């Protein structure tokens, strides 16, 4: 669990550092604000299931923000993933932000570095979209698309279906990544907003490796598909 804490710690430090300088000038229309959003902090119900953290934080103004994204998955000390993105987010349309910056895949090793160019926003019919192009070392490139919706069962009980997929331009055997569409995951989470800012949830998370990536994973004797029942909490402040 030690490594799972590190992104939380990172976010915490980030929040603390900006929290101190937080200014509410008198009725300033566009005050410097900060937000930390723990979108998923969850664990699988079966032993051996992974513990996941997916969080974002931002610091900035209406149209321009510094944006941090952290994704972490911890199954065991030799099976863990940790990815951090540090981005500059600029509003380009009423519902869309252009995001540019860097991504570091800290785990698994060796660490990979990427430049990021992405868009995050709300598409018609209420699809929350996060799509990015990543350019890495040695001519590597990758794309990621995640799509999410929120369905209100009641005003406080909210069902969230989401899909994410990744594709890579070339094989990277050291990190078990093959070229082409590498993985797809889908989740369905049902949260109850005790307050707007704190909502425990239960959910179902399914993921599958594809193509060359699946071959690499299979050759390691690992399973290419996973289904987990999860419990977790979504929170922001």
């Amino acid at each position, binding site marked *: 669990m030690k490594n799972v804490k590190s992104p939380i710690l990172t976010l915490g430090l980030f929040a603390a550092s900006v929290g101190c300088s937080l200014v509410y000038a008198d009725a300033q*229309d*566009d005050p410097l604000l900060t937000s930390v959003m723990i979108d998923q902090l969850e664990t699988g119900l079966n032993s051996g299931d992974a513990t996941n953290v997916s969080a974002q934080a931002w610091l900035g103004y209406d149209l321009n923000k510094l944006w941090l994204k952290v994704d972490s998955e911890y199954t065991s000390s030799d099976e863990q993933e940790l990815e951090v993105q540090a981005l500059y987010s600029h*509003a380009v349309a*009423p*519902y869309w932000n252009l995001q540019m910056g860097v991504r570091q895949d800290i785990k698994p090793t060796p660490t990979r570095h990427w430049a990021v160019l992405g868009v995050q926003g709300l598409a018609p019919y209420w699809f929350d979209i996060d799509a990015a192009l990543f350019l890495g070392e040695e001519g590597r490139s990758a794309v990621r698309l995640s799509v999410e919706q929120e369905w209100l069962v009641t005003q406080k009980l909210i069902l969230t279906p989401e899909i994410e997929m990744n594709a890579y331009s070339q094989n990277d055997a050291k990190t078990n990544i093959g070229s082409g569409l590498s993985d797809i995951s889908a989740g369905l989470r049902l949260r109850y907003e005790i307050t707007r800012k704190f909502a425990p949830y239960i959910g179902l998370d399914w993921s599958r490796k594809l193509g060359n990536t699946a071959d690499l994973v299979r050759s390691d004797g690992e399973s290419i598909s996973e289904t987990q029942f999860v419990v977790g909490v979504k929170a922001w402040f």
Partner: protein
Amino acid sequence: MTEFKKTSDQHACAPQSTFTNKSVSRRQFVFGASALLAVTAIPFSRNAVADAIARPLTELSGRVFDLTIDYQTVNITGEPAQATVINQLLPGPLLRWKEGETVTLRVKNNLDRDTSLHWHGMILPTGMDGVPGLSFGGIKPGETFEYQFPVKQSGTYWYHSHSGFQEQTGAYGAIVIEPKDAEPVAFDREYVVMLSDWSDEAPESIYANLKKQSDYYNYHERTLSDLFADIKKQGLVNTWKARSMWNQQRMTDRDISDVTGATYTYLINGNSPAQPWQALFKAGEKVRLRVINSSAMTIFDVRIPGLKMTVVASDGQNVQPVTVDEFRIGVAETYDLIVEPEAGNAYSLFAQSIDRSGYAIGHLTSDYGLSAKVPAMDPVPILTHGDMGMKMDMANMDHSSMAMGADSMSGHSMQGHAMDHSSMPMGADSMSGHSMQGHAMDHSSMTMGADSMSDQSMQGHAMDHSSMTMGADTMSGQSMQGHAMDHSSMTMEGIGLAGYGSNSELVHLESEQGPQVDMRADAPQSGLNDPGIGLREHQEKYHRKVLTYADLKGLHATKDKRQPSREIQLHLTGNMDRYMWSINGLKFADSEPLELSYGERVRITLVNDTMMTHPMHLHGMWSELETGDPDYIPRKHTVLVQPGSKISYLVTADALGQWAYHCHLLYHMPGMFRKVVVK
């Protein structure tokens, strides 16, 4: 005549009624710091607190007033919270002035930051207006600022801090000015009814929450069960169609109020619904209610079940009496009503928030022993396409083709179209559907305008309109503009005659494009005859006559009968999702001042390019609302602009200096604000 001084003695559940000290002890619920320590140590029941708070306003009268602004811990919801109070009171003291006198107000700042008091609706020298950065530098901590100005008007007004978000936390009070001449309104007793919204949350937190999640306080969103109900009722295809526009636009038709009863407790004279404010009357009395909306964010719909209300003044200015069952009061507006309650009865004065997430309530009673029924709130309003300023779904194809050309159409040609309808056999009553209503309204506004016009101008007007509408079916948008121009040569300046509203073409400026603006109304309806979202069917459904702006006619003749020399079209803009508000797409910080020449008569046309109802307040000068009668134009200081609608008023720039002009929704104000310079 007045009842303010007596009411505390008459109060049944007022253990402190023997207090005569006006400034401190009368409001038991305002705890000092030491009192709070004592109170938190003793478990107190909510009722014990509530009993103490159903109290009348404290009144100060004379020519010289000493006011102090302090932080105080108050308990309105059952939890202690920090308020900003004037003379230790929430609301601050009721100030009673006399027209023709000069008042002096010494305002001491006991806060740790700047403060100010703005005398809302008062016509006064710019230096006395109390807007930091425009009229003066603000009142620094520990300092006292002396306001002094002659009182040149009478009626019901109010005052509030114009610094930061202090107004949200209690820094407001009522002003009643007795007229120099005979009061035209007969009444036996009067009460101030000060509506407000209270939150235990700090206003800065509310603002930050909205910036991070704009629907943070909205618990009236559409749910899956609504969806299934709609599908069951209308079928899948129709449900998809009905929701398609909203879904494409990423907007919700349930977006009525930014801040709701989820955090607000709604107050009358500082009293929550847990212990309603009470007011006594005697048999046969005519009671004047001076209703003031001193909320930060809440528009109220007010009614007194069982009583007709005769509106005699709006924003302090007398209007020709109009009797209604219900009226909407925007933030910062005031309405004076005459009611004639029957002895042996108790009545609820019921003010439900526009989004129906809560209400403020008080009781009018001939006997404190009587209790009045609390009415149920009306259904949650649902926005229509018309509220987005979009073309309306008309059964008649001609209509929709007209509306479709609206991009290039002037407001005038829309009205002309409406005019055409009045001659159609299909009256408003036989029309069905929500979105039709706006249309029917346009038409009635035209007819009304025509009635009160002189014969000659009416002929010219009507002739021109008919020629326009005749061609409308076959004409393109462009040739229609040509017609509008023909018309302009007939009126003085082509922008429409004073009193009847704007004829000008709708123009969306380049500055409206960008991430800060999520919507532009292409076919704004007239906001004049529209009772507003959530009130439109009340006549039909409940037989309640709802006041509209078209009902307001000045009691006194229009003073400045000049035609407007020019028109300023301002678009109220925003991005709800990002919680950004602006005018013409530019927030205050990025905008140039609006310049008026001293003495000129101009028309301001406000086009609402958002789905929110915005109360727009011009400081220093009257907003003379064009309600269809040029001879009796009502004067207002705050004008509600309905979603996706437009409205016009005339302004005589007779006040030199710098003035504020802004949306009076507190969390819209920082962006939706302009400096007006008269020179």
